[in-house]
């Protein structure tokens, strides 16, 4: 965007909240004027008051101020008062960051003032590098929502989105709507008193979807190509009958469901070989045939005794079967045992379990089954053998601690849910790499993978949602369960994690709301979660790009594709504004209007660096604004003081840290750099999934640079910090300062 006004800067120093008692605000104002080169400098005793805010507004309107530096409290507080959409704003954290965090007492007056002076210098330096974000110019206005999958999750998502006023396209692979629920005789109860199997309610749900004017249902259809970004996804839908159609949609809910674990993989339990061993889906078929009457086996014999084996091929530690618990199967077996008991109370129904897990109101359901006389035995099955006209289940009884056996006319195996989440992206990347180097078998494998893909995204990072664990399309299970790593595409139901109908309904409703949020943000040119509403967007100077592909590979959200000349193509509305690309770029051509290599670099260079004989080291803290920075603020709030030798710069994500900042800092005479980011790895807490991991990876390579500079490797450290580390963080900082003091001042100071 062309700047219509010339930059005019103004600094405001607040002396409220005790800042004026402990700090010389006159001097701060002087620093802003002389060193910060602010065109206008004002002091105020209570800046966030109506009068103080009014002063700033007047200066913006009357004095043509375009850039505002506020030296007051943390940028995380008073955000409403200090909200000036027409000006670029920088904040110097004098209250939480200086006043509250530096130890009390006259002995600390000098370092306290130095710290405040530096924060004002840094605020002014940053301010001059900022531009007012105007929003992504590539706005996309489609507010339609595509739902892939016509089971309970998909139907619910479609209905919820439509009821909220959004047009929905519902794509179902099969000839009917309903998914697995259509194959159930009854469902586990969703209402008081949670005592009886309940009608699925599916017919009514389908009728509502079919009758809704804003939902168009496409049966016998699959998605063969998806391109674009939130607000402008182009989706090609192939149909069994008729030519393929193109749809433009704003967001996608993927409710592609699950498959049951293959019974034939359980030969030890007679799976696939014994005629009277079925899985839970098989039992539902028998129950549907019985229509509430006595359940008969495949050979027509009425079942007089039935044994349910829980966790069959699940929660397996040997690596042979599914390692996880599917969550629904205990309740499902209880429900199915009731089918027998309700038709004839004299039928023996035994449930063999190791741990009975009945989430939700399942405990009442369990109790109801006990009332009905379903027998529960804690033990683990080892084998199912043919016996007479039925089967014999051998098991270990864990209560009586003995090997035992029980005969039954029918054995039901509670097998687990396997996600229909499409292609595993690691396998995809490997196969594509091999195929591109000319391997014919790899090409064939790639085509096979393409067939099982659900969305067929033409993204650089692969055709489906990334899978987190065990093949499920989950994304951020700790902080944001409804998020995924493909902006505008939301997984719902058992494709995301194993779940039952009640959970699927809740999950699909959440996904529909996320999809609505995504289309609305895309239409405004704003970021989606977690920087929802942020108007900045990545800007790339392509003329400087070396086509190294680091940004396209490292983007945690697959927002960046490549064009035919291998230049990055930024799909801004897929971008979450974490800045990982900016941190990755070796030639530093990627920036945001309000956050750039320069805006942080200028702060690093702005501090007043004491000489090497001053005994005042300077340590740079690059703190993730999501967890580490709030934790520091809270430490201040609780007056948990730490050393005044550190200077903190908040970063959007540790992934946005460009190594040039580290090099600049060390060359500039900083004695140490401490990076504070979120937990990485399998149970990561990074708000941008891979950002902190990327940062750690990059920093692992910094050691060589340090050695080349003749510096100790301890001068750059990284730590994982959670938002709750309020007590730990000040100690961590003090320990590091002590370590740096022990190592000695940086020899680079004399060159700086």
């Amino acid at each position, binding site marked *: 965007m062309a700047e219509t006004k010339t930059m005019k800067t103004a600094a405001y120093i607040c002396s409220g909240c005790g800042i004026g008692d402990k700090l010389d605000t006159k001097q701060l104002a002087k620093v802003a004027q002389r060193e910060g080169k602010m065109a206008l400098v004002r002091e105020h005793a209570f800046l966030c008051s109506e009068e103080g805010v009014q002063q700033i507004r007047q200066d913006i309107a009357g004095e043509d101020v375009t850039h505002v530096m506020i030296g007051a409290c943390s940028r995380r507080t008073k955000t409403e008062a200090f909200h000036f959409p027409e000006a670029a704003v920088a904040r110097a954290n004098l209250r939480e960051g200086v006043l509250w965090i530096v130890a009390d007492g006259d002995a600390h007056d000098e370092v306290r003032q130095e710290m405040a002076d530096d924060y004002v210098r840094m605020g002014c330096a940053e301010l001059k590098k900022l531009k007012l974000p105007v929003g992504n110019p590539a706005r996309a206005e489609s507010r339609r929502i595509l739902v892939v999958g016509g089971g309970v999750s998909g139907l619910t998502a479609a209905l919820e989105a439509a009821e909220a006023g959004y047009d929905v396209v519902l794509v179902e692979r099969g000839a009917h709507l309903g998914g697995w629920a259509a194959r159930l005789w009854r469902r586990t109860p969703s209402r008081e008193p949670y005592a009886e199997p309940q009608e699925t309610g599916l017919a009514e749900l389908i009728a509502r979807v079919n009758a809704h004017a804003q939902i168009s249902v496409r049966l016998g259809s699959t998605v063969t190509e998806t391109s674009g970004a939130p607000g402008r996804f182009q989706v090609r839908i192939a149909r069994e009958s008729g030519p393929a159609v193109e749809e433009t949609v704003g967001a996608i809910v993927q409710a592609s469901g699950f498959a049951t674990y293959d019974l034939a993989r359980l030969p030890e339990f007679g799976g696939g070989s014994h005629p009277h061993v079925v899985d839970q889906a098989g039992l539902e078929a028998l129950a549907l045939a019985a229509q509430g009457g006595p359940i008969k086996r495949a050979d027509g014999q009425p079942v007089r*005794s039935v044994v349910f084996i829980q966790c069959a091929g699940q929660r397996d530690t040997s690596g042979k079967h599914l390692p996880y618990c599917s969550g629904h199967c205990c309740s499902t077996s209880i429900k199915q045992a009731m089918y027998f008991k309700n038709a004839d109370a004299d039928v*023996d129904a*035994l449930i063999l379990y190791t741990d*009975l897990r009945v989430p939700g109101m399942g405990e009442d359901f*369990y*109790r109801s089954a*006990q*009332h009905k*006389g379903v*027998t*529960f*035995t*804690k033990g683990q099955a080892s084998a199912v053998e043919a016996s007479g006209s039925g089967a014999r289940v051998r098991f270990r*009884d864990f*209560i*009586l601690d003995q090997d*035992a*056996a*029980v*005969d039954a006319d029918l054995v039901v195996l509670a097998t687990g849910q396997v996600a229909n989440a499409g292609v595993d992206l690691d396998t995809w990347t490997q196969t594509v790499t091999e195929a591109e180097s000319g391997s014919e078998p790899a090409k064939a494998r790639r085509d096979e993978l393409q067939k099982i893909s659900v969305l067929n995204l033409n993204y650089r990072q692969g055709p489906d949602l990334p899978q987190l664990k065990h093949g499920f399309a989950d994304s951020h299970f700790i902080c944001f369960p409804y998020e995924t790593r493909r902006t505008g595409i939301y997984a719902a139901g058992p494709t995301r994690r194993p779940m039952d109908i009640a959970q699927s309904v809740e999950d699909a409703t959440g996904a529909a709301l996320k999809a609505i949020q995504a289309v609305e943000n895309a239409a405004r040119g704003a970021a989606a979660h977690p920087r929802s509403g942020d108007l900045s967007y990545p800007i790339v100077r392509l003329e400087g790009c070396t086509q190294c592909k680091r940004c396209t590979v490292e983007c945690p959200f697959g927002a960046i594709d490549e064009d035919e000349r291998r230049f990055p193509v930024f799909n801004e509305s897929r971008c979450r504004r974490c800045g990982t690309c900016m941190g990755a770029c070796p030639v530093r051509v990627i920036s945001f209007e309000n956050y750039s290599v320069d805006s942080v670099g200028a702060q690093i260079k702005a501090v007043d660096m004491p000489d090497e004989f001053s005994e005042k080291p300077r340590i740079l803290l690059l703190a993730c604004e999501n967890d580490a920075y709030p934790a520091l603020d809270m430490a201040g709030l609780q007056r948990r003081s730490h050393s005044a030798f550190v200077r903190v710069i908040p970063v959007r994500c540790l992934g946005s840290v460009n190594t040039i900042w580290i090099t600049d800092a060390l060359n500039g005479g900083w004695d140490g750099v401490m990076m504070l980011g979120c937990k990485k790895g399998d149970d990561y807490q990074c708000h941008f999934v891979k950002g902190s991991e990327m940062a750690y990876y990059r920093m692992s390579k910094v050691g060589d640079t340090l050695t080349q500079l003749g510096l100790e490797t301890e001068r750059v450290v990284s730590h994982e910090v959670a938002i709750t580390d309020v007590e730990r963080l000040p100690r961590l900082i003090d320990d590091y300062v002590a370590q740096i003091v022990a190592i000695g001042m940086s020899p680079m100071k004399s060159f700086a």
Partner: protein
Amino acid sequence: MSSGTATPARPYQADFLREVEREVEGGEWVRMCMQCGVCAGSCPFGPHWEHSPQKIFMMIRAGQREQVLTSESMWMCTSCYNCVVRCPRELPITTIMHGLASYSQRLGLAPKMQPTRDFSLAFYDNFKRTGRVNEMKITLWVYFKDGFVAGLKKAWAMRHVGFGLLKAGRLNPLEILGGHRCKDSKGIEAMLAKVQQIEQRGKAGR
């Protein structure tokens, strides 16, 4: 109807569970046990039982008729009600334990030489004659149940208590000759006869 001969109980089928539900006081609660083991952990006699209540309930479900009914465990219950208070499924465990003991006694399967059982029988026998407990006789029974010498030793050890009771007029040595009866011994006899009759009818007939 109940009998001493074992009806065939198929392993892990509900045959014996159904028998317990039919015949045993509180037996209909056994199916509600969720095998958490809180009763076993709460019992002050826990380490001294062969089978905890949790195991007894599981054995019933596993069809271990013989082992349950000949078990000494139910006889060990002191009715402290700790398990009943703590059971998350609110099973009347004490009642079930006594019900099982009583049922095994009726079937003649109760363990012989079991002190609690012997004392219960002696106690019943004692008060049945006169309609009231004869303290002299029941004390002597307890003292001499393990033999004459053991009884003398016990009596010698307790002599100060005994003389004290005598002096205070709380223990009448003449009671040994038969003892006095309660006011309406006919009434008590009729009551006990009725109890016996009801018990004979079994649980279902009540």
